[in-house]
């Protein structure tokens, strides 16, 4: 038992970088503020969402109370939490069980497969509390306070919150373990990341489209949820543990205890069953996935000649490298390229989803009015610049080099040239977003070509300072120590700061455009003003980028 416990301890330590944090707090006192700041940013940015969710749950509770079923709020919350954990858990479990970097150094340890899976499972479980507790705690408090529950309720709710993710995670683990045994997914890992990511993006589109259907005032919300009771029941009947948890919590006396024990019992049985299955088949699938296949194609002299080409300048060579590394890394494609075209794509999706919407028809009609067209073009410009400002390619460009940063320090290429290549790569991605917006505006909204061209030109100029400033942030403070591409791009604070800076720049540009309009100037003048301001910002930001790069590249150590 002791090796297993110390394995769990080590896994949790690595997962939460406890030793690294301790080191940072005791030794690198200067950098103490970083984790604190990150934590605060996360909490602050999540607070409004949590407030919104709590308000929603309050409405569900009062809706349920009206119908004499106050426990509906619990059932809804458990269904939601467990479904979210199940869906996200599948990819998460797959990553942790089969693709984590340490897995091959763990296999030779004298631990049984079920112990390894058990340890990894606990890490995922602890991580899932970050999702499940914010989803469960507000409804539990609302119900507990709203129906004046006693001590037993709060004790039970504590236990249930700890146990809640076990059933969905055990199901997700079983699915993954069995799937991996049958199909060698490791070979298609890259494809899987892309497909999974695109599915998630579309799912979030759908959710945002659905959210638009939720009525705005409280009364309507209550009615909306009252009319959706059948939905909760339906999902509940397909996924009974949510109902057991809700009834176990809300019910007093024997029936409440029965459901409570049923929930605990099923959780334990499923967990043990999953560990038993894992013990049988985990290694087989894992080791099959580790076999690397290579084409082993011997290149002839002419083939080498063809692939080498004529040779290019260092900047172009660096640009080619940047581009290839980006498009060959699924996660970068998702957050860079796909992210860049997601904005205009969302407009297209909404267009098709609400094709029969009278508002949209009215808008299409109004576009025929030559008075309106310039304003729509201005709106398109806003979307273009927003799209250009929101991708993470520039704000993680240097961070993505990670451990290969020694090459950047070693090669005889100036810092200026190196950031130029990074800038060009990021700018291309932004430009793709701008052009995609143009295409959608011209094809779907039938925006007149001349206005579309005008907006595109200003959009392309405006993308320069956005890319340059985002890159500047990363050059100023790159995150070079990371273990997964996910950490380099999505868990990189520079991405968030970059978006913030982009917002500020967008606000400046919007203020300039509105200022021009308020002064009674024609829309073309607003376009021109945005172009001029963009050009000035571009010159300043590129100058600053070069200056900072020269200094930072010199100071950086590899």
């Amino acid at each position, binding site marked *: 038992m002791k090796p297993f416990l110390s394995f769990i301890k080590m896994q949790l330590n690595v997962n939460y970088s406890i030793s690294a944090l301790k080191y940072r707090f005791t030794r690198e006192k200067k950098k103490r503020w970083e984790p604190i700041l990150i934590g605060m940013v996360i909490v602050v940015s999540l607070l409004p969402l949590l407030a919104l969710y709590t308000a929603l749950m309050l409405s569900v509770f009062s809706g349920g109370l009206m119908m004499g079923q106050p426990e509906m709020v619990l059932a809804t919350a458990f269904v939601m939490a467990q479904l979210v954990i199940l869906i996200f858990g599948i990819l998460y479990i797959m990553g942790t069980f089969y693709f984590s970097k340490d897995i091959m150094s763990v296999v030779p340890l004298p631990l049984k497969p079920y112990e390894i899976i058990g340890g990894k499972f606990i890490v995922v479980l602890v991580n899932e509390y970050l999702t499940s507790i914010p989803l469960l705690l507000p409804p539990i408090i609302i119900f507990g306070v709203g129906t004046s529950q006693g001590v037993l309720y709060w004790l039970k709710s504590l236990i249930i919150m700890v146990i809640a993710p076990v059933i969905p995670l055990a199901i997700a683990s079983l699915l993954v373990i069995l799937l991996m045994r049958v199909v060698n997914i490791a070979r298609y890992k890259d494809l899987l990341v892309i497909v999974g990511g695109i599915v998630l993006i579309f799912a979030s589109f759908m959710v945002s489209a659905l959210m638009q259907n939720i009525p705005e005032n409280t009364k309507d919300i209550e009615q909306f949820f009252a009319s959706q009771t059948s939905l909760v029941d339906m999902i509940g009947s397909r996924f009974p543990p949510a109902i057991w948890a809700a009834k176990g919590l809300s019910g007093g006396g024997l029936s409440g205890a029965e459901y409570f024990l049923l929930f605990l019992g099923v959780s334990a049985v499923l967990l043990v069953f999953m560990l038993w299955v894992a013990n049988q088949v985990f290694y087989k699938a894992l080791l099959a996935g580790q076999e690397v296949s290579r084409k082993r194609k011997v*290149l002839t002299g002419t083939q*080498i000649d063809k*692939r*080498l080409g004529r*040779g290019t300048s260092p900047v172009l060579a660096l640009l080619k490298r940047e581009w290839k590394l980006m498009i*060959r890394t699924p996660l970068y494609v998702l957050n860079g390229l796909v992210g860049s075209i997601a904005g205009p794509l969302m407009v297209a999706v909404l267009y098709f989803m609400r094709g029969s919407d009278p508002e949209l028809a009215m808008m299409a009609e109004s576009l025929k009015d030559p008075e309106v067209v310039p304003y729509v073009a201005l709106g398109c410009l806003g979307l273009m610049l927003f799209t250009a400002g929101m991708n993470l390619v520039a704000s993680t460009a240097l961070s993505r080099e990670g451990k*290969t940063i020694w090459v950047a*320090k*070693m090669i*005889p290429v100036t810092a200026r040239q190196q950031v130029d290549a990074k800038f060009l790569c990021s700018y291309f991605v932004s430009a793709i977003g701008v052009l995609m917006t143009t295409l959608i505006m011209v094809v779907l909204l039938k925006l007149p070509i001349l206005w579309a061209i005008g907006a595109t030109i200003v959009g392309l100029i405006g993308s320069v300072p956005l890319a340059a400033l985002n890159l500047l942030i990363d050059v100023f403070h790159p995150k070079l120590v990371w273990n997964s591409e996910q950490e380099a791009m999505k868990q990189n604070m520079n991405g968030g700061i970059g978006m913030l800076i982009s917002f500020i720049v967008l606000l400046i540009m919007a203020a300039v455009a509105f200022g021009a309009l308020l002064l009674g100037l024609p829309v073309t003048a607003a376009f021109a003003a945005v172009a001029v301001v963009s050009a000035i910002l571009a010159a300043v930001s590129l100058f600053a980028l070069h200056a900072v790069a020269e200094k930072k590249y010199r100071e950086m150590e590899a």
Partner: protein
Amino acid sequence: MRERLQERKCRKEKAAKKLQERLQERDQRKEIAQNGLSILVSGNRLQKYSGQRILRRRVRIMIDIRNLSKSYNKGQVKAVDGLNLKVNRGELFGFLGPNGAGKTTTIKMIVGLLNPDTGSIAIDGTDIAKEPIEAKRKMGYVPDEPVLYERLTGLEYLNFMADVYRVPASVRKERIERYLDMFNLKDAAADLIKSYSHGMRQKTALAGALLHDPKLWILDEPMVGLDPKSAHLLKNQMREHCDKGNTVFFSTHVLEVAEKLCDRVGIIHKGKLIAIGAIDELRHGDQKDSLEKIFLELTDQ
């Protein structure tokens, strides 16, 4: 007045002495240029050098490290402590020392990956801090743990290195093919580096560092991870490179390799250079002493 005259006389004498020395040196150079010179290299091997190469060796120092220091943790750990070292042109120099002695830190400062706290490093007369690009162009470096771009193919990586070091298209293909052949990488060149073994990555990094035929190779533990055949080929390459008048500076733990291969070795311990010279010089005439014994004696103190 008299003092001033005396001072002038003194100055004149000094100038005359300098001129005489220069003339003597010129005569020596002429003689060497005409006849060449046999000198003792690596143990008791005599090697005949052509006159021109000896001249270059005499007049140019390839690596000139002066008073180099680097510490970590705000000065708590001194990794390199006041290091002075000169490596001559055409020399195969082995840099030895126990784990944590400061070898890799020194090498990283030479190639510009780390910034020294104090001191200076000149590569072939070019200060790495003042003219980094010029200095880097003269070097080819392979780190002890070659982390390469996983999602490029081996050939793409080599082409990239050729581009950034501006290897002319006319020689690029021939050199790339030569190194792919030499390191047995031809059948892997079209695969992503992600699929390479440690040894293959090491060989790819080596090929990338040699493509521009640099005057100075800097190799950090180059034999680690290489199979015997590749290690043998690499050793030959290192020797050949030096015989062409270039310089190789490498760190190693394999004392036999240093003993057989190096013209001179330097031993670093706790950040300080504790011995430098040809193996014979370090033996102090006792031919029975192995480098291992010398090393252990020196680093035990």
